């Protein structure tokens, strides 16, 4: 057995942080992605511009820079607001940005932009006759979305979504810079203390690989589900 010098439990906790962080960020990213795709496809000029601006900024700025900007910049912004509240109304509150929340927020925000592109392409790939049939049969817009647009769109979105997820998963390693004890940070500490970086990094690598494999299996099942009925899939 490899000797973990007592870091086993902490590594496990770190792995859980990584998974929780990744899953919550994914949920936020999907939500933001759907919003962005709708904004970009909307006939409102303003929504369209907002959507485009969001994607442009996220795509143009490195993830690490965004994360530090949001985390440290966000804390400064909140401090300014609380100071102002104190000065003006004598309301004394103190808000400290929680690293985990900041991590989820940042990663979700970054990947929301990529998801937006994925979803937009996927929505555009849906045959408009399918949507029209829904409308012609008296479905409301939300019913059309739930019963027709979304399930038909998903089969086009899944390859991109799965790809985004894999990149997102690896991006969680960046949160160690804002002080969150994810798996990578624990392993880095352990490596330094024990001078056995190889042991710990191998373990971390294997855990990432495991998560990726399980996801791949899950996405394959989802793809099969959403491909049902389509000629190529029969």
């Amino acid at each position, binding site marked *: 057995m490899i000797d973990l010098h007592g870091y086993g439990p902490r590594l496990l906790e770190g792995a859980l942080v990584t998974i929780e962080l990744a899953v919550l960020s994914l949920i936020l990213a999907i939500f933001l992605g759907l919003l962005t795709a709708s904004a970009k496809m909307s*006939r409102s000029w303003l929504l369209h511009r907002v959507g485009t601006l969001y994607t442009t900024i996220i795509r143009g700025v490195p993830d690490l820079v965004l994360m530090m900007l949001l985390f440290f910049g966000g804390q400064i912004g909140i401090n300014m607001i609380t100071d102002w509240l104190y000065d003006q109304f004598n309301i004394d509150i103190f808000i400290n940005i929680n690293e985990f929340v900041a991590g989820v927020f940042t990663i979700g925000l970054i990947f929301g932009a990529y998801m937006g592109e994925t979803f937009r392409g996927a929505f555009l790939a849906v*045959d408009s*006759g*399918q949507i*029209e*049939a*829904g*409308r*012609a*049969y*008296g*479905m*409301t817009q939300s*019913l059309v979305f739930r*019963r*027709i647009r979304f*399930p*038909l769109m998903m089969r086009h979105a899944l390859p991109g979504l799965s790809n985004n997820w894999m990149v997102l998963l690896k991006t969680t390693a960046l949160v160690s810079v804002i002080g969150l004890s994810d798996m990578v940070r624990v392993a880095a500490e352990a490596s330094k203390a024990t001078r056995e970086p190889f042991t710990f990094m191998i373990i971390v690598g294997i855990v990432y690989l495991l998560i990726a494999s399980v996801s791949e299996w899950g996405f394959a099942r989802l793809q099969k589900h*959403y491909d*049902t*009925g*389509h*000629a190529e899939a*029969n």
Partner: protein
Amino acid sequence: MADTPIPLEVRNITKRFGDTEVLKGLSLQAQKSDVITLIGASGSGKSTFLRCMNLLEQPDDGELIIHGEPIRFKQTRHGREPADWNQVVAMRAKLSMVFQGFNLWAHMTLLENIIEAPVHVLGKPKKQAIEHARELLERVGLSDRADYYPAQMSGGQQQRGAIARALAMDPDVMLFDEPTSALDPELVGEVLKVIRGLAEEGRTMILVTHEMAFARDVSTQVVYLHQGQVEEAGPPAQVLGNPSSERLKQFLAPKN
């Protein structure tokens, strides 16, 4: 004088796409059990007219009256739009449309396609919807295809399935947009047979078709459109048998 209200009445519909006026004031009245056929050259506005009837396309002007109830419109900066979408949704549930390209939902089996709107739009209990769907499948000759996906069926089967889906709504008026023109010639007959059956049982239908012999057989009224206007309209024997418009004569003349 209060007769049963007219199922569908359209008054003076106009529609433009950009700078071109595609419909130039079209009116039509479908009494109960009428079978009205719209004919005309490609681009004359038949599909657009039909799509205005259930507001898949928004007419710029004109009235739409369903069972005596006018659809209310309001002016927005995108043009004229229905004032109350709930009214439109309720209206559409009474006018079933059959499309040229079938448009059965690809991710649902035929049976699921048929019960979809009755269950989710009309709120019909699922068990009852399935029973009704099975009767309709039998009627269009597709009892053995209930669990097939659209992609696994021929065009003729898909279109008969789409007609069953339309019937499942118990519609007051059925709208058909060239229901057979996407089909291989040998499959046209089976679909026309189903539509003919509907005409015989007194369904109110509005039908765009290029099948002149069929139109002559089943229609109570034929409307010939030319560049977004009614050029000639009347009973089939007159419009198709003895047309007065030169253009219509040309249109009906056998091509070589």
